[in-house]
């Protein structure tokens, strides 16, 4: 599904080189629920961004479904992002002026579908995440947990091959967080591949596999549960 081969990401700061990631090799199979852990600044977000095609590696290769993300045009990369990847950000990143429903339907709108076709799908997903009565609300009229569930619905609308989540519950309370994780977990049990960055061991425990990053390198990789098939 996702394959990383000796991936590195280097930032230049003046004439100093900062290696956010060094020599990471990793295979993520279909149906896995991978948690990425590690101390702050260890490169977790950087890694996730590379997998999601938001950022380009400075060394090594990143494959998604066998397609080399490191060597395709921006347009192809964008299409992969749009159709194959669902990204859930820590700070939700909903468009503030659009309603929940419009936010959810955005990737399909980008794909050129008229809103009349997008709408039922968005409504169905909002129902799935328990927000069918909030579809006309704008982000600032929603709580953090609700916003994150909207973001999850948005990530799901294209039926992506993989969901990438960067600390999806970074600033939510335990109960709300748990609901989000249960949602992700149930998606995973239906076969959805998920990669999630987290600081929270409780969250990581929902996964089937945990990797730990330290100083930009892969420090540990362990399987803790069986992968749904």
């Amino acid at each position, binding site marked *: 599904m996702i394959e990383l081969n000796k991936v590195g990401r280097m930032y230049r700061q003046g004439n100093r080189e900062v290696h956010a990631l060094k020599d990471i090799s990793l295979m993520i199979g279909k149906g896995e629920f991978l948690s990425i852990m590690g101390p702050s600044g260890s490169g977790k977000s950087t890694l996730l961004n590379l997998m999601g095609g938001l950022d380009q590696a400075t060394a090594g290769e990143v494959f998604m479904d066998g397609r080399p993300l490191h060597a395709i045009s921006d347009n192809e990369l964008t299409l992969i992002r749009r159709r194959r990847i669902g990204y859930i950000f820590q700070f939700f990143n909903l468009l503030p002026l659009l309603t929940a429903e419009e936010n959810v339907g955005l990737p399909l709108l980008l794909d050129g579908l008229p809103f009349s076709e997008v709408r039922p799908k968005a409504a169905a997903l909002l129902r799935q995440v328990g927000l069918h009565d909030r579809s006309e609300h704008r982000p600032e009229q929603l709580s953090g947990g609700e916003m994150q569930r909207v973001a999850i619905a948005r990530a799901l609308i294209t039926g992506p091959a993989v969901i990438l989540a960067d600390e999806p519950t970074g600033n939510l309370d335990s109960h709300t967080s748990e609901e989000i994780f*249960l949602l992700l977990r149930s998606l995973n049990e239906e076969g959805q591949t998920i990669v999630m960055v987290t600081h929270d*061991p*409780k969250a990581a*425990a929902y996964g089937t596999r945990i990797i730990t990053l330290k100083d930009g390198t892969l420090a*540990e990789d362990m399987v803790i*549960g069986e992968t749904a098939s």
Partner: protein
Amino acid sequence: MSIKYALLAILAERDLHGYELKSSFDHKVGEFWSLNYGQIYSTLDRLEKEALVTHDREMQEKRPDRKIFSITPQGREELAEWLATPVGKIRALRDEFFIKLVFMDKDDPGPLLALLDKQKALYLKQMSKLTQRKMALKKAAQGPDSLTGELLMDAGLFHAEADIRWLTLCEAKLKAAVDRKKTSKR
């Protein structure tokens, strides 16, 4: 001590004999707390002396008689009072791991760091199991008992999380100390 109140609480639901008492205990809190029959019987003895519990004998063929225990009104009163009182004492720090920490060599942190990692991995695996059990519980039944179970599962998870976080902190502080030493030597 709280074995006493746990037994009282179980008996408050219905009368039970010793064996049944143990299995009910295991079912409810066995996840965290294992007891042997000896502990149960000695506690029951104490409770009878304090007149919080009485027993009837039940005749059995071929076997010796069985004692069926029941809670007295006095016992119920005591139980209610206990349930309403918050717990004053914090969890004791007498984990085996702490003892190891005390006796490890701080000048050569290598083995200790390795231990920390292994310990963490262990905890994480435990947490994963707990999470799976919790989700199984959630799916299987809906009822007061399953909610209690879930909450206890959560407690376990939170404790394990605390331990993992603490282990992570240990790791960070040890590393920082080593770094400091290195720079001061130079």
